[in-house]
Structure formats: C-alpha cells, structure tokens
C-alpha cells in the first residue's frame, strides 16, 4: 500500500491547490496594503446628545458650511460615531474645525481633529482598513473604573425605604420608624398584628423584597431585603447607567474615537486615544453632578431687566430648550447625584406624559422642605454640559412633595418626556465609581513604540531570511518565501478582523515568525535526512513533508494551548499579544506547509528525473557506520529495497 504511493509521487500540486494559494496571497496582499497608506488629517463631527442623530442631512449642511467658507474638503464617511471628512492639509483641518464649531455651535455637536487612513474608498468598502492601533502605540489615556456595587444596592435600599414609608402611611399601618441598614430596610412595629399586616401589604406591592421578622417584645422588626434576581438587575442597571453617563461626559472632551466599554461584571473601560491631558480627562470622568435643580426668580420685572442685560445679583439668565429666557437663582437646591432614577410615564387620570423622578433620602428631605415653602413657584431642572447650563424644564410646584417621588407633568409630548428623563438620568451616576487602573501614553512614546516594534520585526526577519537561505539554499528560499507569506497573511488577518495592535502584539508578530520557521526547519531537516540515506529527491521531498506534518501539528497545538490561555486570562496589551500569537500559529501552518510545498512543486514538481535538490550540503557518513548506528527513515528503506 505504502510502497505504491511512494513510487507514484511526483510532488505536483493539482490546479485547485495552486488557486487556493494564489487567492490567499492576493487577498492577503489586498488586506495588508491599507496599512501602508499614509494618514491624512480629518475632521470628525459627532453628536453630544443622545437625542440628536448624525445623518446625511447634517453632512450636506456641513459640506455647505465648508463650501461657503471656501475650505477644500475630501471624501466623507457617516457612521455610528459621526461624520468624518478628510481634509487636504493641516491648515484646512484646523481652519475647518474652527469654522464648523462656530457654525454648528457647541451645544449639540463636538468637532474634533482626527487622522484617517488615505485608503481608497473601494478598499474601505470591502473592509480593507489599516490595523487599529492600541493606546500604547498611538498615545492616549486608558482608565479602568470600578463600579461600587454595594453602593448601588445601598442607593436602591434608600429608594425602597421612601417607598415603604409611603406605603405604611397610605395603608395606615402603625410603625415606629423605617430605617436603611446597609442594603436592607428595617421596619419597626409595636405589635405583631401591625407587623403581619405590613408584611402582607409589602408582599403584595413589592414581591421582589424578601421579608424576615426579627426582634421580640414591643420592638418587633421586619427586615426587607432585595431578592438575588432583583439585586442582579439593579447592579446590571447601575453599570449600564454609569456607562451612559460616562459616554455623555466623554463626549464633552471632543475625542475622535472614545471607547466606553463594560469589562467584567462591575468594571468599565474608558479609552481616549490622542488625549494628552490625563488630569483634565480624569476631572471630567470623575465629576459627580452635571444636573442641578434651582429656583426660578419670578419677581415681577426681573426677566425684562435681565433681558436688557442687567441680571440681578446671585441670579443667572438661561434659555430653556425652546429658547424662552428664564432667570434662575444661583443657589442650588439639589444636584444630580441626589437623583436615583428618572423615567418617562403618564399621569393616572389624564394620561398626560410625565417624567417620574426618584430622589434619595437626603434629596427627598431637602425637596420636601423646599416645596413646602415654595408652592406655586417654578423650579428649574438644569443640565450643565461643557460648563454651560441649559434649563431642561421649569415646572410649577403644585404642592409639598415628600417621600422623594417627584412627578413632572404639563405641556410635554411623549418624546419630550423621554428626552427629559434621559437627560436627568444622564446627569447622575447610579453608583459611585473609582479609578482602579490608569495608563497614559504620550504621543511621542507611542510613535517610538511603533518605530521600535517595526524595527524589531524587520531586523529579525531580514537576518532570519538570510540565514535560512544560506543554510538551505533553494529550499531555504522557499522557506523564507513561506515566511513572508505568513507575515502578509497575519497582517491581513489582523487588519480584516480590526484587531487592536499593541506593542506586545508587535512582539508577538516577531516571535511568531521566529517560531513558525520551525515547521520549515523540520521539513528541510527531514528531507536532508532522507537524502542522506540515499532516497531519491522526489521521495525525499514527499516523505520529508509527510513525516514532518504530524510533528508540526502537535507542536502548533501546544503553542495554541498557551495562546488561548493567555487570551482567556490576559487583559489589555497581553490579550493583544495572545490574539496575534494564536492567529500567527494558524497562518504559519498554512504557509509553512501548504504554501511552501506548492512552491517546491512549482520548482521541482515538473521534472520527471530530478537529480538533485538544492538544500545545502548534505553530509553523508560512511554507509557502514550509518546502517550500524542509526535508525533508517522510511524513505531510505524504500531506496535500499530498490537497490537490491
């Protein structure tokens, strides 16, 4: 069986195998090329507010503005991030930014400077883009924020204690007080009957609470705590809301491509490429209140004098979202961090749209006092963005509002209610956060990293290729070509997948090349060994590839195991290393075995009588010592059998 197979080997590939190689290399080249296009200056326009979408209409407007200002501009893209317009040079970029920011105003949009690859549009269309660079290569700030999950539960318990207080009052259940204890609420009663009724009522109105009786005598207690599924829901919501808030804040910085992402159950990653001033970024991210509630100054004549430019002392003149002027007192009643939640809803009787706001216990107390003293007056809810305040809404206080549940209603559409609720939520963090990791890389260091990484790969690659070529001659050239294909395919794959390249990632490219040459060394050594034993060149090539394959497979699998473990457990730059390592192992199997054998068959396959392979010098020991001392490879046995 085996004998026949060996004898028929001509080392020729069928056409479809060549086609696979040609297609793979062509695709590889196509997806590698974008990395070599230089970057061109660009302007990026993105929306600050969740309610304002960036679309083609805005693009037309932007192009109109640039045309009117006589500024040249290039291609543009509209995507989920915003509008990106390529600019012919740096001056046009700077000038364009100023003109656009002035024309669009800084209330709704940020206009940021960015760099875009000058890859032709058709290439971008088939997703052939340059690799995404990590922060260590392009410079910028990376934060890892830890959301205080216990804090989120405490806030929820705060909310529940106000709810339960209202419930006890509504159902007229006698109690000796309701207090928050950690993340649960303790209700105290004088007699068992009251406690049982309370238990009954709470069970009906808040099934998500677990109720445990405690205490004895005349100090009977009921401990209400959240069931696990509700706890999880609250914590998940806390992370989601904090992320929304962070996005809002990050937008203020006008960064071209910010990343706000959840990392694990309770952490959020914020990455701001290109940002140099880490301190400013930290201040914006770490700020707690962007929402303020203040009283409207409604003294007669104040508005008129203010509009003439004479704003009374301790007052500010603002405009609301419809452009109506409002004079607001400087004293802040409440800040956004006292707001636990804000949701759109409807009034029960008239089905009017409303915004239902939930305050924490401190906020509820302040609110009750302020509303008691100011019935009939207006109160302004203001959002402070980019150091500018805007009045979201300024409703009239109808009555004293206790219990921390506030309903804002009147002249609102459902859409407006949604918007106001979103803005009020956006100002608040659902749970406190702290920075647990920070990495800042300056732009010059980033460029240095790219340069050093590039030189490492290039230097190593050239020396390695020269060495392999001089040691294995033509077969070495084949190996070096396969190695080049490997490099191209790896970069193409990284570009096509838009994997983020980091400095350890570049190191992994270098290391992968160094390791993947092993497959070719194994093959070439095998072929030499077969030749040493007197196998014919064709047989030597065939059995060299065949015998080496299972070894190559085994060793790559073990490398892959290490790569996958790194990927699963690593974070940030190390994960970048793991991705490149794993992908590199796969491309190397293809190039070192499949492609290199294709090359060999192009070079040697068509020759029927192949006398010699150029694989460097094959040293042959005297035949007697050989047979006596070494294990013969398979090919040699064939040969000896033929000789006999």
């Amino acid at each position: 069986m085996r004998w026949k197979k060996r004898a028929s080997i001509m080392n020729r590939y069928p056409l479809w195998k060549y086609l696979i190689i040609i297609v793979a290399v062509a695709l590889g080249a196509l997806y590698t090329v974008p990395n070599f296009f230089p970057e061109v200056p660009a302007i990026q326009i993105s929306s600050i507010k969740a309610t304002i979408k960036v679309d083609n209409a805005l693009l037309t407007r932007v192009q109109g503005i640039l045309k009117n200002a006589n500024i040249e501009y290039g291609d543009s893209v509209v995507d989920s991030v915003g509008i990106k317009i390529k600019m012919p040079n740096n001056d046009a970029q700077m000038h364009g930014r100023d003109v656009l920011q002035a024309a669009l105003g800084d209330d709704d949009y940020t206009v940021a400077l960015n760099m875009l690859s000058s890859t032709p549009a058709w290439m971008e269309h088939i997703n052939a883009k340059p690799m995404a660079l990590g922060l260590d290569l392009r410079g910028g700030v990376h934060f890892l924020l830890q959301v205080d999950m216990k804090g989120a539960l405490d806030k929820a318990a705060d909310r529940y204690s106000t709810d339960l207080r209202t419930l006890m009052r509504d159902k007229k259940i006698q109690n000796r007080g309701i207090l928050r204890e950690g993340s649960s609420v303790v209700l105290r009663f004088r007699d068992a009957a009251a406690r049982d009724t309370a238990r009954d009522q709470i069970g009906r109105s808040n099934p998500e609470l677990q109720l445990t009786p405690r205490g004895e005598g005349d100090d009977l207690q009921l401990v209400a705590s959240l069931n696990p599924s509700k706890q999880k829901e609250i914590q998940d919501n806390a992370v989601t809301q904090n992320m929304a808030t962070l996005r809002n804040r990050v937008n203020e910085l006008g960064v071209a491509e910010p990343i706000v992402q959840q990392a694990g159950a309770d952490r959020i990653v914020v990455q701001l490429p290109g940002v140099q001033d880490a301190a400013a970024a930290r201040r914006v991210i770490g700020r707690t209140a962007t929402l303020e509630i203040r009283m409207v100054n409604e003294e007669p004549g104040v508005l008129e004098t203010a509009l003439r430019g004479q704003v009374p002392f301790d007052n500010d003149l603002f405009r609301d979202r419809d452009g109506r002027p409002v004079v607001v007192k400087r004293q802040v009643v409440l800040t956004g961090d006292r707001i636990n939640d804000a949701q759109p809803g409807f009034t029960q009787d008239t089905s009017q749209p409303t915004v239902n706001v939930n305050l924490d216990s401190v906020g509820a107390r302040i609110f009750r006092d302020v509303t008691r003293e100011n019935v009939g007056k207006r109160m302004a809810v203001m959002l402070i963005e980019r150091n500018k305040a805007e009045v979201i809404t300024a409703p009239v206080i109808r009555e004293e509002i206790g219990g921390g549940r506030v309903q804002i209603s009147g002249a609102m559409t459902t859409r407006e209610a949604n918007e106001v609720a979103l803005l009020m939520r956006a100002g608040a963090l659902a749970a406190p956060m702290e920075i647990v990791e920070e990495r800042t890389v300056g732009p010059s260091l980033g460029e240095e990293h790219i340069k050093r990484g590039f030189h490492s790969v290039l230097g190593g690659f050239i020396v390695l290729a020269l060495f392999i070529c001089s040691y294995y001659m033509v077969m070495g050239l084949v190996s070096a070509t396969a190695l080049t294909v490997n490099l191209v395919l790896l970069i193409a794959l990284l570009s096509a997948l838009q994997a983020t390249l980091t400095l350890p990632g570049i190191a992994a490219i270098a290391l992968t090349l160094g390791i993947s040459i092993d497959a070719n060394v194994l093959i070439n050594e095998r072929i030499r060994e077969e030749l040493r034993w007197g196998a014919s060149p064709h047989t030597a090539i065939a059995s060299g590839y065949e015998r080496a394959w299972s070894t190559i497979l085994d060793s790559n699998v073990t490398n892959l195991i290490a790569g996958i473990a790194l990927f699963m457990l690593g974070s940030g730059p190390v994960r970048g290393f793991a991705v490149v390592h794993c992908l590199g192992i796969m491309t190397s199997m293809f190039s070192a075995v499949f492609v290199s054998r294709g090359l060999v068959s192009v070079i040697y396959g068509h020759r029927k009588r192949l006398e010699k392979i150029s694989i460097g010098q094959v040293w042959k020991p005297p035949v007697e010592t050989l047979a006596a001392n070494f294990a013969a490879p398979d090919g040699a046995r064939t040969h000896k059998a033929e000789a006999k």
Partner: protein
Amino acid sequence: MEFFRFTHDIPFMRHALKFNIISLITFLLAIFFLWHKGLNLGVDFKGGTVMEIGYNSAANLERVRTAIDTLHLGEYTVQSFGTADTALIRLPLKEGVSSAQLSEQVMGVLKADNADVVQRRVEFVGPQVGKELYQSGALALLLVAIGVIIYLAARFEWRFAVSAITANLHDIVIILGFFAFFQWEFSLPVLAAVLAVLGYSVNESVVIADRIRENFRKMRKASVPHVIDSAITSTISRTVITHLSTQLMVLSMLIFGGEALHYFALALTIGILFGIYSSGLVMAPLVMWLGVSRENLVKPERKKEGLEAEKIMP
C-alpha cells in the same frame, strides 16, 4: 553547509543521571532565589504608580529625587530608563490618595524644578486589580500545564506528558529564578513571554517524543536508551537551527525593541536556551526513568499513523 555531522548516536542516556542532577541543582537554585529574594513584581501585579518622564537634556536624577522628597510619599524609586533623557519614577500605593492626585502632585513639583519636563507615560494599577492580574497569571500557567498534559497524554502516552511538562515547568522556574536573582522587573509582558516559552518548549519535547515513538517502531532490536539516544541525535540539528532562528528574532527585539520589550525578550532568551537543554536532556531521561517501553507506544500508534498518512497525503 551542514553544522552537524554525527557518525554515531551520542550516548546521552549513559549520562542521564548527571543531567538530572545538574537540572535538579539549577532547579533548586532557582527555587532558592525565588524564596529568598522573591520576584521583583512590577506595578501590574503589585499595584502602585509608574511615571516615565522626559527632559530635553540628560535627566538629573538627584534633582528629581530632591523635588519628590518634598512630597513625603514613602518609599519611591527614581532610575534612568533607556536613554539618559528619560527617567522612571515608581511610587507606592498610598491610602486615601488617588493616583490622579499623586501623579499630578509629582508633575507639579517637577515642573516647578525644571519646566522642560514632559510626562511620557503614567501607569497606575490599584491593589485589587494587581492581585487579580497576579491570580489570573498563575491560573493561566496552570491551565496551560493541564492542557498540555491532556494533549500529550492523548497523542502519546502519560509518561511523555508527565516528563514533558516537568521538563518545561523546570524551564519556567529557571526563568523565574533568573528574574528573582537579578531582581529584574516582572511585568505583564514578561508573564506573556513565560507562557509563550511554555508552549514553545513543549513543542521541543513533542519533536523528540515523536522521534522516540518512530524509532521504537523501526529499531526493533535496540534497547530503550539507544532508541532515545538515536532520537535526540537525529533531531539535534533541527533543534539547534530552530532555536537559533527564533533567537535571531528575539535578539532583534533585544537590540531594537528598547526598554519596553527588554525584559520580554530577555525572558524569551533564557527560555529558548534552557529549552534546548531541557527537551532533550531533562525530558528524555525522565521518560526513561518512568519506564517507557516499546509496547507503550508502538501497537496502538500504528493504526493511527496509517490513517493520518491517508488523510494528509496530497
């Protein structure tokens, strides 16, 4: 060119005991340094703040120290980093002071001292994150070891799996021993290098194990030590060429990669050097001591090999 010309199998196994004793001594030394000096854990694992600062001219480390001393930050270090113009400041974790305040304070006093200073890089890792990175690093090491054992046990035999993983963990411990002895900084990239070395040197053991199996099939009358000797001798050329190739790449990283890749490349270098030695001279004797025999490998393998050849033949 042919570097290796052997007329006889080198009788490695005759000296198996000596190799094992050498390994044991280096291994114990590494353990001793790890225990005695410990790893110089970087900010990634220990938590704390690292700042890289740059000047237009050579950095005056004394003045940097004097400036930082005014802040009373506890045990900090300042050293030059790569070039003379840059310096690296390591600050310990401090209760109640956020990283933000810390690095801003330091930049403040340095700017007051010399307005030229620029902040090139700041890394802050909180104590909890550091601990987690440390644990997940250890877990990754364990996972790789288990994964490799399972794979090798399935592909070869448990004796090979156990010997290979022992030999390669021996490499890892020696790398760590070097880092402990010289007190080089052990950072995340170094951990990545260590894990890559683990995968890489198992690869070595696989090549030799493959040859041992093949030789058992062919050298029907040879003794076990002779079979192993022959396997090591016939793969020695490949082992050295491959490692030389990999080392060329790593050397390039050492030369061009700068400080950022220095320890990464250094860990790989040690791993590669010891990998050459351990795959042949630690793993093979262990396989022998564990009592591997022809029967362990040949019979079930034959079928498998045949099947594979069918599949792979182009």
